[in-house]
């Protein structure tokens, strides 16, 4: 087999300048751990033009390939000279630049949402956006105005972005989330009489703590206490701790002592990973962890002015020379190195990359890459390599390796080479799951787009996955890179409301702030671009326009909002209450209508308010309902305004029932009658009039006879009169109110039966021909258990009902006789159904005989 060399692809595996410890020929270190290698990749040649490099300036670069802020000290040291604040992308493209006119800045830093924080000496923190626009400010505590901030650190935790400051009184003050400032003064450090030699913020067990070193002593400061600690297995020769660095996830800690030793271990200091002697006695300028999660090779990067050292538990160190003053930016899986001219990425070489690219590697991935290369050359060696992989049964693994390795590459050509090899290998596999390949291709396309010089977000695949697409899109939006953001959303097929819509909304919010353009133009542009895109909140955009003082534009934009409910609050805020009312009605949400109505009621005078309601029937009827339960008088006014006499009549009727005094009741009813008359509702007017008459009658009766009847219905009054024997009065009422004969007869019949006044009943039955017939007489008597009386009326019952009457009084024989006489099939059955076979034998036989003969006919 020919020897393969990948020098051309391997070139950025910068060889260390020197190995501090001699390595054996098998490239294994003496203690047996795998040779640990790092690579430094050039990300960008910086686009900025810094005459002095990074000298004489404060610099802050945001993690995840974020923006870089520089605060340049003035050239001349005159008191009037001001520093210059500049903001760049990671590739050095300028985004903002302005003269710093505020106080002395002690620390710059970035928030997780790409806002720039400038911590001033007096404890004030100024917040700027990416483009240098001032957003807001807050203070880290009033005491700092006096005591001043000595040092400050900006840190990130699951709670957001936080700030820790060290005051002139050597006290630490902490804010864990700048979006929700709660200042915490940490306990005093006993005996601290100066600035600690080094300190850092740690986020552990949901608590934010400060770790500080004074000389050889280490302390942990939490909310309640200051605890002295000592790292496990810390060498006795260590004297002063002069640098400290926590890892990205706060799980690990590195300490650098003035004896040149580095202690690496867990952040709780209880586990030691290793201790390495760098043999460097000068204090380093910066120290940072460089460790890919899940990797077995933790390492720390330590920087001196011209010199970079990578150290790890293998006691191997790699050393790089630096041409320029640089700054380290720790990342989740690597460290970026920014200098005046270049931007580089230092990372541990991923295992799969090493396996593929290592010289003379026999890993399946390496062989597959070679096979594909030969295949492109149309050489039969391709087949040889493939066979070799297959012999190892490693084709699946090979494809996986190539895909994985592609994900670690920054150079599109290398990515393509690996992916093509993977794709080639895939052809010889059945049942290969394509997801990893497809998603890697997709992710790399997105990453290459944002890594581009013009965008300048040099994310690694791992960082991208950690930060999620959503956040990446947000970042692009903050940078106003709307087209790219939309492209990515569309390419990744992100649901519209999470993707494109969100981007467009931001675009529109930005657009409405462009003061130089006319309202119409902007409204048209916005609607044209956003159209009916799903999930667009036009009301948010309108709210932004309103905030910028563009009410007219806001109203125009609100017109596009499909959710009427969303339009209402803003319209009310803008005092467009009429419009708000129609929108509320349009939404169908009655609660919203009520809200606007209540608002209008408080805002307008009564007349205007009523007029407004009059034009909105739905709102009017809702308001009426409200008034019916809450404000009766208003209800009356509403009806009056509309000349709704029918409802006014009803209103007075209702009112009459809420009155205890009869006089007031009467006057209510009088009003009701008048209104009904006006409404031309003759029936109601008359009925009301009758009610009044009845009430008067009842009152008189009450006064004269002491019978309490006021409020009873006519029927009940009559019943009452009959029961107490006031027949004359009953008769009078019956005539006055033209009670139908039938009902009166029923009524009287029942009353008499109830009284068991059988004599009177009989008299009554003879007054004239009963309009209800005589069966009810029979029934009523039976109901009151008087069979004897009942029988008196049987003979008077009409022939059609006679059978029923006989049955009612229990005279089955009589019933049978009538039924037979009438030869009525139904009646015969009815009688039969009341007979019992044993006792009424003869009747049954007779009936059956008749039925039989009737049947024959």
């Amino acid at each position, binding site marked *: 087999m020919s020897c393969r060399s990948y020098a051309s692809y391997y070139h950025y595996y910068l060889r260390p300048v020197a190995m501090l410890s001699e390595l054996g020929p098998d490239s294994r270190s003496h203690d047996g751990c795998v040779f640990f290698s790092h690579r430094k990749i050039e990300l960008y040649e910086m686009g900025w033009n810094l005459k002095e490099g990074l000298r004489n300036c404060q610099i802050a670069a945001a993690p995840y390939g974020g923006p870089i802020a520089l605060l340049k000290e003035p050239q001349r040291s005159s008191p009037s000279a001001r520093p210059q604040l500049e903001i760049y992308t990671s590739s050095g493209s300028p985004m903002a630049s302005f003269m710093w006119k505020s106080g002395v800045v002690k620390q710059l830093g970035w928030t997780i949402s790409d806002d720039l924080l400038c911590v001033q000496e007096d404890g004030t923190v100024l917040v700027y956006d990416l483009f240098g626009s001032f957003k807001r400010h807050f203070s880290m505590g009033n005491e700092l105005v006096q005591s001043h901030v000595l040092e400050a650190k900006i840190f990130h935790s699951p709670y957001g972005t936080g700030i820790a400051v060290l005051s002139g009184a050597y006290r630490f003050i902490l804010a864990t989330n700048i979006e929700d400032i709660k200042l915490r003064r940490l306990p005093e450090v006993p005996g601290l009489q100066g600035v600690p030699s080094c300190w850092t913020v740690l986020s552990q067990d949901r608590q934010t703590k400060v770790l500080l070193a004074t000389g050889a002593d280490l302390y942990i400061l939490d909310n309640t206490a200051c605890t002295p600690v000592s790292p496990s297995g810390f060498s006795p020769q260590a004297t002063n701790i002069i640098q400290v660095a926590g890892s990205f996830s706060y799980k690990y800690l590195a300490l650098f002592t003035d004896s040149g030793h580095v202690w690496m271990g867990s952040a709780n200091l209880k586990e030691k990973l290793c201790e390495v002697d760098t043999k460097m006695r000068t204090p380093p300028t910066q120290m940072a962890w460089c460790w890919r999660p899940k990797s077995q090779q933790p390492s720390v990067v330590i920087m001196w002015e011209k010199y970079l050292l990578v150290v790890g538990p293998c006691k191997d160190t790699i050393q790089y020379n630096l041409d320029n003053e640089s700054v380290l930016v720790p990342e989740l899986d690597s460290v970026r190195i920014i200098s005046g001219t270049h931007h580089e990425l230092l990372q541990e070489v991923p295992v799969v990359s090493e396996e593929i690219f290592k010289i003379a590697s026999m890993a399946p991935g390496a062989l597959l890459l070679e096979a594909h290369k030969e295949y492109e050359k149309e050489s039969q060696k391709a087949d040889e390599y493939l066979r070799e992989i297959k012999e190892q049964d490693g084709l699946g693994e090979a494809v996986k390796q190539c895909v994985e390795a592609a994900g670690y590459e920054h150079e599109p050509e290398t990515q393509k080479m690996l992916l093509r090899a993977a794709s080639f290998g895939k052809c010889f596999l059945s049942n290969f799951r394509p997801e990893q390949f497809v998603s890697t291709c997709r992710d790399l396309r997105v990453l290459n787009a944002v890594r581009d010089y013009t965008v300048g977000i040099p994310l690694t695949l791992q960082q991208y996955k950690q930060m999620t697409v959503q956040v990446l899109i947000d970042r692009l939006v903050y940078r106003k890179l709307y087209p790219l953001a939309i492209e990515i959303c569309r390419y990744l097929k992100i*649901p*519209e*409301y999470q993707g494109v819509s969100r981007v467009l909304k931001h675009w529109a919010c930005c657009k409405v702030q462009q003061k130089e353009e006319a309202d119409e133009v902007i409204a048209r542009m916005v609607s044209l671009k956003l159209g*009916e*895109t*799903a*999930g667009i909140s036009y009301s948010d955009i309108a709210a932004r326009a309103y905030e910028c003082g563009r009410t007219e534009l806001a109203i125009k934009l609100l017109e596009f909002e*499909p*959710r*009427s409910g969303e339009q209402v609050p803003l319209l009310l805020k803008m005092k467009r209450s009429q419009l708000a009312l129609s929108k509320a009605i*349009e*939404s*169908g*949400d*009655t*609660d*919203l209508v*009520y*809200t606007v109505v*209540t608002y209008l009621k408080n805002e307008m005078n009564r007349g205007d308010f009523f007029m407004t309601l009059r034009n909105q*029937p*739905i709102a009017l*009827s*809702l308001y*009426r*309902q409200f008034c019916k*339960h*809450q404000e009766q008088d208003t209800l009356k006014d509403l009806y009056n305004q509309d000349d709704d006499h*029918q409802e006014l009549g*009803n209103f007075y*009727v*209702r009112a009459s*029932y*809420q*009155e*205890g005094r009869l006089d007031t*009741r009467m006057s209510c009813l009088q009003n009701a009658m008048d209104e009904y008359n006006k409404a031309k509702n003759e*029936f*109601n007017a008359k*009925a*009301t009039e*009758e*009610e009044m008459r*009845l009430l008067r009658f009842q009152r008189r009766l009450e006064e004269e006879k002491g019978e309490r009847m006021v*409020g*009873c*219905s*006519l*029927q*009940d009054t009559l019943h009452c009169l009959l029961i107490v024997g006031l027949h004359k009065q009953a008769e009078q009422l019956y005539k006055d*109110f033209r*009670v*139908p004969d*039938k*009902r009166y*007869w*029923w*009524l009287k019949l*029942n009353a008499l039966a109830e009284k068991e006044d059988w004599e009177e009943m009989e008299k009554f039955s003879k007054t004239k021909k009963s309009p*209800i017939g005589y069966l009810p007489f029979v029934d009523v008597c039976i109901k009151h258990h008087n069979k004897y009386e009942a029988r008196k009326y049987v003979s008077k019952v009409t022939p059609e009902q006679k059978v029923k009457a006989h049955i009612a009084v229990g005279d089955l024989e009589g019933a049978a006789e009538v039924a037979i006489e009438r030869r009525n099939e139904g009646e015969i059955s009815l009688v039969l159904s009341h007979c019992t076979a044993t006792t009424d034998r003869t009747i049954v036989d007779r009936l059956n005989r008749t039925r039989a003969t009737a049947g024959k006919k």
Partner: protein
Amino acid sequence: MAAHLSYGRVNLNILREAARKELREFLDKCAGSKAIVWDEYLTGPFGLIAQYSLLKEHEVEKMFTLKPGRLPAADVKNIIFFVRPKLELMDIIADNVASEDKLRTPRDFHVLFVPRRSLLCEQRLKEKGVLGSLINVDEYILDLIPYDGDLLSMESESAFRECYLENDQTSLYHTAKGLMTLQALYGTIPQIFGKGECARHVANMMLRMKREFAGCQTQILPVFDTLLLLDRNVDLLTPLATQLTYEGLIDEIYSINNGYVKLPPEKFAQKKQGEGEKDLPTEPKKLQLNSAEELYAEIRDKNFNAVGAALSKKAKIISAAFEERHNAKTVGEIKQFVSQLPHMQAARTSLANHTSVAELIKDITTSDAFFDNLTVEQEFMTGVDTDKANTYIEDCIARKDPLIKILRLVCMQSVCNNGLKQKVLDFYKREILQTYGFQHILTLNNLEKAGLLKLQTATRNNYPTIRKTLKLWMEDANEQVASHQFYVLQKAEYVPVCRPTSTGQQGENRITLVFFLGGVTYAEIAALRFLSQMEDGGTEYVIATTKLINGTSFIKSLMERLEVPP
């Protein structure tokens, strides 16, 4: 506990589970022990979503009924008010919170609005100065509650009155929202048909909401093919008529509430040997009625006349099954028999219960009063003398029968006659006012406003023509087969509407959701179930409504309650 919900073609248990999940989430929001203060009206519907055990699991230790004054003592961390968004209830909450004993350990107050929070109510709480003391003010969106495998109801008792009388479309808004929730779970319904103004309004709101939610829809294959929205006032006749199905009659006579009916206990007394008759149960017998009970599912929609036969058939089958034990010879056979025993015993209990219920009902349906009433109803529907004052109604008024019965009949006559002549209408109204009291003048106004009672304006009554052309009335309907005579009335009008296309997959039934805005009766549900079962129908129906009603509750909802002052 809710097996009956998953029997049908559409698994309505998904809806219930979603509701339960939301409830649990809210309860967990209020950490620690809790007591719930109930708006009493909500307890029934809530019972269909979650039993006490679920609440208990989430540290609900006490339950009270909402009433003014000081809250009962309870050693809990949280007090949660479960209320409808009604202003009068806000006043009670405010009262409760304000009179909380300041000396005791403070309790956290929360308000959960069902089915939706209301700014108006929050405003009221604010005015009363208690909004600030409430930790959580939240909403529990409970619009459509699953009642059975094919039945959803919002149990909003005043829906018809609000929509057709008061021009208040709140319940329609809730309907639209409820349908959106349903669509989120069961996919977007591709076709919407409707009849009536309210139906149009709901459909419009749904379209609007769809646009509002655009983009958030999950791509679920639609379960329902069609939504049919029906205004209750398109057919006012059916709810007025006495229902004659088994379930309908139970509801008419004993009224079914939230799936339960309370029955007089006498017939259910278990006569055990050695026990005298003396300790008859005095508590009403409470029965749960749904399709989980096999026998009930079988007979609920039958015309009552056919129920007896069905019950005796079932009795034979069950006793035959019990007789099987004599045939069981081998151990295996006995084992099999024993394994079926619980099921058989349940069937026997069920049979015994329904035999008792049927007896109770039979006592009523065989009475003269019931018969006379039914005769008049049928005369009206066949158009016999509908333009004259009816003597039966007159007699009923004279006897002072219950007012609701009178109103049902008068309204029915009016509907069947397309309004009453002035003379007849005034006569009835006068009779009612004189007999039952002047206060009912407002109720009569309401009935007129709702169109149940009206003056005949057209020169001709067109109801007979409609009846004949649409074959709404079936003479000699075979009661044993047709579950209810009036089903024709329902379907003749609507079936053509909901059979426009057949985009459904071949060989598979289409599913139509029929939504009755303003209420539906059990008889109408029975009619739709009957259609679902028709082999050549090709459509299955799931029924939804704002409220399960019958003639009595329907009329009652429209009445104006005025108390005569002392």
